């Protein structure tokens, strides 16, 4: 073929460009599929590195280019979700925490086919993942991993004062009084953050209380169980904790334990993992025990994370391919879970006794037999309105009011009123 002259070149390229513009489809040759994935900065940073490594392998194996972006914890992540949904532009996939698939239900692709494949392979998704991502009969996000709250405590202090590891919230009060006298108070946040809700929920459930009934419509916060819970918080605040818990962020209880102040906190294992990674002196002194119970049983907040695909994505099939690659290939999923140092546990039943729990003797209690794991707002279905109650921080604000002088009755009445307004819409 001879060289093109200028007229031929212009004619050919002009016709091609017109064709592309008319059909709005780029030519197949040179076209590479590209997907983007937004996830949080994992509290186990090695997990993010592993994710990037797996992503590169995925691109090599499938030819689909994957761009992974990370964003810091809850606040910025939610702002990003909101802006992407409002502008109908942004990432193809987003990592969602707990109940967020309920809040963004109309914007998320049905991924029931992907979850069905994973459940066939690994067994049912854990209960909390089901509660969070199975929205009105449809999987709106794929369960990825979960991390539950356990008790992290200073084993050395317990030994020094001959304290018994508590089994119930009431026993924690007995132990907490001694810890505070030793200058190592209990650290349960009572402020506008998610860790506060993650503890207030289990305490409430364990005392037999609940926020909204199973029907998702009847507010049930005004009950004897709530009275017991609030009274427990009041005495804990007075005798076992310091007022600083009213100003804490999600990270504060971790820092308090790591820096050698708190003697007992309620948190995922991240406090220990970070102490270990940073080689803090407290790392060797921290241990875990399973979450506490009460007259209503032993309940715990779980933090399942899922991967959702926005409906506005133009790469839904390619996005599903990535999810199947990360979670559906057993060796890849195992590799990913192992990198999380027991902070990210597999979200499927058959994988619960995972080898990652045997990598450190201090993870022995993470299996937590007999503990019922739930997402926020249980036993009400994780509907958008129930989650608005969570996101409005009503539970921690009720406790904060009570511990700072409002009567138990008035604090509960305030919470009831706020919850009723939300449920009424």
């Amino acid at each position, binding site marked *: 073929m001879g060289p093109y002259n200028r007229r031929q070149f212009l004619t050919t390229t002009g016709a091609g460009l017109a064709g592309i513009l008319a059909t709005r489809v780029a030519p197949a040759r040179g076209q590479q599929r590209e997907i983007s994935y937004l996830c949080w900065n994992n509290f186990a940073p090695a997990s993010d590195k592993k994710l990037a490594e797996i992503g590169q392998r995925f691109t090599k194996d499938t030819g689909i280019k994957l761009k992974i972006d990370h964003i810091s914890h809850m606040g910025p992540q939610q702002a990003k979700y909101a802006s992407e949904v409002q502008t109908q532009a942004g990432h193809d996939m987003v990592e969602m925490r707990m109940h967020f698939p309920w809040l963004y239900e109309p914007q998320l692709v049905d991924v029931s086919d992907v979850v069905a494949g994973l459940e066939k392979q690994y067994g049912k998704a854990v209960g909390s993942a089901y509660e969070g991502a199975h929205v009105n009969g449809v999987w709106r996000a794929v369960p990825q991993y979960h991390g539950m709250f356990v008790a992290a405590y200073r084993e050395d202090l317990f030994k020094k004062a001959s304290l018994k590891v508590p089994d119930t919230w009431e026993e924690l009060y007995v132990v907490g009084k001694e810890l505070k006298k030793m200058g190592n108070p209990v650290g349960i946040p009572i402020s506008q953050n998610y860790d506060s809700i993650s503890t207030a929920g289990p305490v409430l459930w364990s005392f037999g209380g609940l926020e909204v009934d199973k029907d998702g419509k009847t507010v049930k916060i005004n009950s004897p169980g709530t009275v017991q819970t609030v009274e427990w918080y009041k005495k804990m605040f007075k005798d076992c904790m310091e007022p600083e818990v*009213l100003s804490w*962020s999600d990270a504060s209880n971790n820092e308090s334990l790591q*820096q050698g102040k708190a003697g007992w906190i309620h948190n995922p294992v991240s406090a220990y993992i970070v102490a270990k990674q940073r080689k803090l002196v407290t790392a060797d002194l921290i241990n875990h025990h399973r979450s506490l119970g009460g007259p209503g049983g032993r309940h715990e907040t779980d933090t399942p994370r899922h991967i959702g695909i926005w409906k506005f994505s133009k790469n839904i099939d390619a996005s599903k391919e990535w999810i199947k690659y990360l979670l559906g290939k057993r060796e890849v999923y195992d590799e990913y879970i192992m990198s999380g140092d027991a902070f990210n546990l597999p979200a499927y039943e058959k994988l619960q006794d995972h080898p990652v729990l045997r990598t450190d003797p201090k993870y022995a209690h993470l299996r937590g037999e007999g503990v019922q794991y739930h997402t926020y707002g249980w036993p009400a279905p994780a509907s958008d309105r129930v989650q608005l109650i969570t996101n409005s921080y009503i539970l921690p604000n009720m406790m*904060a009011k009570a511990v700072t002088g409002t009567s138990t009755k008035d604090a509960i009445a305030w919470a009831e009123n706020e919850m009723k307004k939300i449920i009424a819409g």
Partner: protein
Amino acid sequence: MAVRAEQIPVGRARPLTARVRGWLDRESVLGPVFVSPALILLVLLVAYPFVMALYFAMSNSFIGRPSEFIGFRNFIRLWDSDAFRQTFQNAFVFTGIAVAFKVVLGIILALLLNEQLWFKRMIRGAVLLPWVIPTALSTLGWWWMFNSLYSVVNWTGLALGLMDPPGPNWLGQRYYAMAAVIIVNVWRGLPFFAITILAGLVAIPKEIYEAAHADGAGANARFWHITLPMLKPVLAVVVLFSTIFTFSDFNIVYVLTHGGPVNSTHLFATLSRMLVIDVGRLGEGAAVSLYLFPLLVFVVWAQLRFVRKHAN
């Protein structure tokens, strides 16, 4: 290179550059050309978001879902909210106290800076630092200083015997938390007051002071009868701007307290953010952010009227 006159073809149309030059010579064309970039920016960055906020405030908009027009229902319903009523009160307490402190301290600082000081330029530059550093960054520093675990404020207070252990819980108790956000706001806004007032001070003719001095007026009398009256127009403008900025503050409260404890430091901007981003209620959040708009318009009108009257 010189162009000879015979090279320009006679009878042909004027070249494009000459025609453009001709248009630009006309004021009716040049004026709009100069104004349009600013106008486009204003429309895109101010008018459009404002109209969108108005639309959201009058709808039951929830993130990612279809919405309906509901008129002023959001504005009325907000009064049922405990958090909103608290925020309304907080905004006036926060702005009133912070602006008052900034005026008083700003005048004192400006008077000091107006004196013949050693390293005058360096000191004037240093005073501007809190104004120059990004607010979110400097507030993080303050957060660390007030943090219950690491508080250097408490550490210093305890070391000097000024506080009883464990010291105030700056961010966890409602009055201390409000005090903390006001302190940081005053620290951040003081340079703006001081430098602007200093400009006003420098502009006061020295002859007036000399005449007053000759008449036997002391420092106090000179301040109350010359300095303050002459500074009034400058003060009015500074207070106007500061009132608006303080009412709409976001960074300081968001970084220091997130509006807590129990909403006791929420301002309109932080509550609006919580309602929109955390809860998803775009309509209510937009209504919160617009609530003070009519009041602020009145403040602007009243103060500008005062300035104009004074100028006349």
